[in-house]
């Protein structure tokens, strides 16, 4: 061994643990440094519910097939071509092994969750969700004698000419140093670092809610970039959705979602509509609403429905604000009353009556409005009226380090072969330059976690 360990992994999320397990299974001695305490471990991965594996034939619990071409088409469409074709090809192909690999490591799967049938062919759902996945992986790590250090604070990497030398960190008040032959960085993105986001988004970012862990602050990413690692993506690219404005600042996870947007109207705090609420099915549109709300004054908006929509959307975690009239609703929400009445009246008068059906792209639309609603447009006139406050909730960031097909981090002007490998969100931008495809985050972590672990172990030999 050329150091204290063969391989050091930074970040104990899904990508990091996958790398650690693969390295250990290749015979390496592995240490994982994780900043969070044990009782909140699991990073953003603990909030996930599925991944998206390529499968040419049925792959329990997935039925039918989701072949390479269809998958690649989907990826190219959502990213608008912002992807490294070679790495994307590699990712999709290797994703076929993700489900078997996870099953071998104690993860169970189940058919799609209630309300997500549209993902039944493409996305493999974890039984019990992401925390069940993480618990299973931590149990594997334990069996493989992988050292996991929680609360490894203030990690400082010593990187010279693209080569990792040693890591310093503080643990329980002491300063510790470790050396290893290779390093895997899997410390997630920087979505919890609102100040960093503000550099790209302006002060609007300070009003963002963070859907996942407060620990993904991008400190490791910053250090690598400072050590001249090649940057991929830019800080404005992120996955942000419109979520319930009352969600906690961090770790609100999946349950703060609001699915009733297409059923009613959405207004900003001037009580004015600002985008077509019925453009497409919600699962295809929710990811643009984060940005839309972020662009409104004070980064806030209100989704307003009437009693006709009750029960047509997934239940919400917080109860709606409810009032018998629009006036009273405006008062409760603190919106200008006149303005809200005008907006709703104008909207109601512009509706072209048709058969309403929220399960198809129906013919209900508006006519003559500056901002049309193209489907599911129904008069808002059946009290009680209900409203949910929306805020941008950031899921993850895309800016990262560039890697090659061996998950090796690329450095500008380096003359050495780097011993630093990256996996997960910290390098997801290589494959997903923009946009989003449900389940692709965990897929990238799974594929590059396995590659990084294997290659880091190989490098250590």
């Amino acid at each position: 061994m050329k150091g204290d360990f063969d391989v050091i992994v930074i970040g104990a999320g899904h990508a990091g643990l996958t790398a650690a397990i693969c390295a250990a299974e290749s015979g390496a001695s592995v240490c994982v440094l994780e900043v969070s305490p044990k009782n909140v471990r699991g990073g953003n991965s603990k909030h996930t519910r599925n991944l998206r594996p390529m499968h040419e034939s049925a792959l329990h619990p997935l039925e039918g097939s989701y072949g390479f071409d269809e998958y690649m088409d989907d990826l190219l469409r959502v990213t608008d071509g912002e992807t490294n074709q070679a790495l994307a090809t590699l990712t999709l192909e290797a994703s076929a092994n993700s489900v078997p690999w996870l099953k071998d490591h104690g993860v169970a799967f189940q058919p799609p969750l209630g309300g997500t049938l549209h993902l039944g062919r493409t996305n493999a759902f974890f039984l019990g969700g992401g925390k069940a996945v993480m618990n299973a992986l931590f149990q594997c790590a334990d069996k493989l004698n992988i050292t996991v250090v929680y609360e490894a604070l203030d990690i400082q990497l010593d990187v010279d000419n693209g080569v990792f030398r040693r890591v310093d960190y503080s643990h329980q008040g002491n300063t510790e140093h470790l050396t290893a032959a290779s390093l895997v960085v899997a410390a997630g993105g920087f979505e919890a670092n609102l100040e960093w986001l503000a550099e790209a988004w302006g002060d609007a970012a300070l009003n963002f809610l963070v859907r996942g862990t407060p620990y993904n602050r991008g400190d490791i990413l910053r250090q690598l970039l400072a050590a001249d690692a090649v940057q991929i993506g830019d800080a404005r690219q992120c996955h942000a959705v419109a979520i319930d404005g009352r969600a906690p600042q961090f770790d609100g996870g999946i349950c703060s979602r609001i699915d009733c947007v297409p059923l009613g109207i959405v207004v900003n705090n001037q009580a004015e509509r600002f985008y077509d609420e019925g453009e497409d099915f919600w699962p295809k549109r929710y990811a643009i609403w984060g940005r839309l709300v972020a662009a409104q004054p004070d980064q806030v908006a209100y989704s307003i429905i009437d009693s006709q929509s009750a029960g047509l959307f997934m239940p919400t975690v917080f109860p709606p604000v409810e009032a018998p009239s629009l006036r009273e609703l405006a008062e409760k929400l603190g919106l200008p009353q006149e303005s809200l009445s005008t907006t709703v009246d104008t909207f109601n008068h512009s509706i072209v009556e048709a058969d309403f059906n929220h399960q198809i792209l129906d013919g209900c639309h508006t006519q003559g409005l500056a901002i049309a609603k193209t489907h599911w447009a129904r008069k808002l006139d059946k009290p009680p009226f209900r409203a949910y406050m929306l805020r941008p909730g950031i899921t993850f960031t895309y800016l990262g380090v560039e890697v090659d097909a061996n998950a090796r981090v690329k450095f500008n002007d380096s003359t050495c072969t780097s011993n630093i490998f990256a996996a997960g969100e910290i390098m997801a931008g290589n494959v997903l330059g923009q946009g989003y495809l449900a389940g692709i985050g965990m897929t990238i972590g799974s594929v590059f976690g396995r590659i990084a672990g294997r290659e880091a172990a190989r490098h250590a030999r």
Partner: protein
Amino acid sequence: MQDELTQTSAPVTAPNLLPLYEESARIMTICNACRFCEGHCAVFPAMEQRLTFDRETVDYLANLCHQCGACYQHCQYADPHEFNVNVPRVFAEVRHSSYAHYAWPKGMAWAIRNAGRFTILTTLLATAFFLLGVTLSGDQSSEGVGFYAVISHNTMVTIFSFVGWLILLVWYFSIRSFWLTTALPGIFNIPLPVYRRAMVSILTLKNLDGGHGHGCYQQGEVASQLRRVFHQMTMYGFLFCFVATSLGTIYHYGLSAPAPYDWLTAPKFFGVTGGVSLLVGCAGLWWCRRSTEQAIETEDGGLGNSLIGLLFFTSLTGLALPLLKGTEYLAIILCLHLGFVLALFLNFAWGKFMHSIYRCVALLASEYEKLRQ
């Protein structure tokens, strides 16, 4: 404006301050928006059929919960998250309160709330009653053989059939009031497949398999089949003993072949295997309870241990009887045995035993809902 909004959010973020049923509704509302645990057990699919969680619904869902712990171990909103979601703990408390709520007559709710004390008291009184009976009836009757030499068959039958009828009456009213809170129609209007599926869940204890078949998480993060195995040893042991008693009755009246029976007869076979299975099962369950993850554990006033204890000691004394035949200890152990049996009978009506009945009704209701969908 902010105040208004934070006020409405209070039910979601004010853990531990709420009364039981509000706390349950708060947690179910979070779960219903999350749904990650859908595959673990029957509770979550039943929850997804609903938007609001009133007392009846919560009683139903709580009795459907087998406290396997999976949804706690896998909850992204568990302590230290501010949502502080802990389904198994709150549902365990609801179940305890529901046993008392559906007790008949109402006054017997105290027996469930003070299960430990009630059990000790009834065991002592019942044993004393038999001891006194034996002592007062003077020298032991010589008409009977075996135990009947101590207490005559007729006396036993009189006492236990009286208590038996009482239990049936209590069951009728308790089951009825719980039944009415569920979506179930009358027993004859339930389609057969519903009975069949519920039966499979009961016989295999499906809901303790974690949804993946590897078992439950009562002891922590790692799934284990132990509790499922011990529970079924207890359940089948109990059923075997029940079969043994029924066969005994048939032998006695139908075949005019009164006890004691030989080792190789059917009543003895079922009695002994059932009894041994009960001993192991109960000891195992007791160990499981002791090692349960603290976070999902609740104080139940001896409710759980009282049933385990009664079953264990009934079985232990029952197995000891044939071995003591002809010795001076027979009379006292028989009285002790009958004391445990009588206390156990009372537990059937006003004790933890009722969990099995409400659980069966809840499973039936959940299968019925699934079929109707």
